[in-house]
């Protein structure tokens, strides 16, 4: 298959997906669970890909994603609450410090930039650390960010530990897909650039990469800042989706969930992360929900079913994947038009056997 045809088919598929969503929105009532999970899935896909950029492609085991999402979400909320609503939202802080409101799209970009700045500053000390120490330090910083944002003295800016709400948000599921799709496309471009190759070299062997002339500190910092930028953007999208936010949401459990999504999708596979975030959200928010309510079949009450059981079943499924299917859904492969084409026509088998990934 020619490269041009491949690009054409890919674009056509994406367009078809957007059209299907557009039509669905007109047909199915907007309160349907379908749209809720699609929106959340798109947001989680973005943050999972951003985490994969660090953990899967650069080999930096970072657990700070929830912290950067929090920064993004708060930036978005703080900058977009309409001026006439501020007195109401910041009722304990005399209407708050900021007395202007930005356009939501601009605020989303700024949310990413602020998260990136935080990442740059945090990265200065933290990126010197290796593997599991890096994990603990980033996890620690995420907790520090959460504590600081809830600090009473910062109340005029962050509203302390109270909710941020009444900010504008887009209702259409198309917006979430478009925003998250554009961001993921940018990450893919980065990974396919010379920077991306340097990231992979660092992942595979730091010493060898350094010997080849790759500036370790510089590249690690870029990966960390870019990943946090997109985590910030996804935080802003999450704020939009939830219509109200509070710092206490962004616990380390959130980072764990994102990490598990990345693992299920396959560490080092962008499409894997996307597929698994939709699976994760659809399963946990929708399909397994029946486990949470009591069920009586013909006078027989099914045991164990009650609130919270869904999460238990879900975590057991995750453990099984972590233990027995360590490659995840995609391993390090990517889902692509060419791959499917080759699969159907039987072409390129030989190349695959030779160890080449079907990109």
């Amino acid at each position, binding site marked *: 298959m020619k490269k041009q045809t491949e690009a054409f088919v890919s674009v056509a598929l994406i367009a078809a997906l957007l059209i299907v969503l557009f039509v669905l929105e007109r047909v199915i009532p907007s309160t349907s669970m379908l749209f809720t999970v699609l929106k959340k899935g798109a947001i989680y896909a973005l943050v999972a890909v951003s985490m994969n950029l660090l*953990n899967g492609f650069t080999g930096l*085991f970072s657990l700070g994603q929830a912290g950067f999402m929090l920064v993004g979400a708060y930036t978005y909320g703080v900058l977009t609450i309409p001026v006439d609503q501020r007195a109401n939202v910041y009722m304990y802080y005399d209407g708050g410090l900021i007395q202007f409101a930005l356009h939501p799209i601009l605020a989303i970009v700024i949310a990413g930039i602020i998260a990136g700045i935080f990442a740059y500053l945090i990265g200065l*000390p*933290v990126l*010197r*650390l290796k*593997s*599991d*120490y890096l*994990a*603990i*330090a980033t*996890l*620690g*910083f995420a*907790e*520090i960010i959460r*504590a*600081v944002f*809830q*600090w*009473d003295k910062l109340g005029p800016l962050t509203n302390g530990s109270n909710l941020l709400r009444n900010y504008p948000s887009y209702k259409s599921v198309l917006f979430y897909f478009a925003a998250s799709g554009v961001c993921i496309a940018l990450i893919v471009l980065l990974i396919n650039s010379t920077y991306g190759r340097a990231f992979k070299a660092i992942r595979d062997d730091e*010493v060898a990469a350094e010997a080849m002339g790759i500036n370790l500190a510089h590249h690690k910092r870029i990966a960390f800042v870019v990943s946090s930028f997109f985590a910030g953007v996804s935080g802003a999208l999450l704020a939009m989706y939830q219509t109200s936010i509070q710092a206490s949401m962004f*616990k*380390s*459990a959130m980072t*764990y*969930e994102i*990490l*598990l999504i990345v*693992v299920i999708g396959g*560490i080092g596979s962008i499409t894997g992360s996307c597929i698994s975030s939709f699976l994760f959200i659809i399963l946990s928010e929708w399909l397994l929900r029946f486990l949470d309510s009591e069920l009586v079949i013909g006078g027989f009450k099914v045991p164990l079913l*009650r*609130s*919270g*059981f869904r*999460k*238990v079943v*879900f*975590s*057991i499924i*995750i*453990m099984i994947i*972590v*233990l027995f299917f*360590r490659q995840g859904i995609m391993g390090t492969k990517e889902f692509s038009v060419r791959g499917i084409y080759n699969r159907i026509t039987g072409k390129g088998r030989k190349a695959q056997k030779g160890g080449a990934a079907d990109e």
Partner: protein
Amino acid sequence: MDWLSKNLPYLMAGISVGGQYALIAIGYTMVYGILRLINFAHGDIFMVAGLVMVYASTVMPVYLAIPLVLVVTVVIGFVVERVAYKPLRSAPRMSVMISAIGVSYLLQNLALYVTGGLAQQYPAIPWISDTITVFGVTTKRVTVITPPLVIVLVAALVMLIQKTKIGMAMRAASKDFETSQLMGIRINSVISMTFIIGSFLAAVGSLLFFSNYTGVTPTVGAMPGLKAFVAAVFGGIGSIPGAVIGAFIIGISENIIKGLGWTTFSDAFTFALLIVVLIFKPTGLFGEAANDKV
């Protein structure tokens, strides 16, 4: 004297909490010493010990409930290792760490399911939870008991590691995992023993910790767990006296910061300390320098 009477409560609380962190930190440091694994689930095992006590004390007297808590916690620690870490013995370190995070997620969700998300009232243990007055400061007896108890337990543990055969095997395994296997050490039983000791101490720690803090929620283990890990790193990972000293330092500084009215930053301080230690002395107070082979 006025200064002392004002700050003594914080200092005492700090020493007490420090002792409780120390008991958790030993579990981290021993596991890390042998497996090079941050056992993210350790804090949750500590939480489960608290929950077991809550439920056990409703059906049986306390003097039966306490041994039961110790036994159940040890069994959980053992099972977690066998099920979630042993199959990954030859896998990359990242996989094992992810598995540990998975276990932590599972234990938290299980606790959420069992408790229904409500904070559970921790039972008052007679004698330990009694209120007493020391130097004019009113406190619970557990505050005073913790430091000597920790010292006794640590002394016993150091004896075990220095004088017994299994202790020798542990030292060998933490020095060089593969060679000790070749020397005929049954590595799996050594690792199981490590988890058993770690969980036992975490259970003791949870008895002391929750006697002071009364409420058990599914995520209550996360913070003390992380702090204990920081203590272990601070003291030099793999070193038991280091972990204990690190835990006392963290417990005391945290409470002094609380006493100064900076409660928001008492958690942040711990991580700031971690980063400072890792940058300036990555091996901690008593750790041995590790050289990367190329």
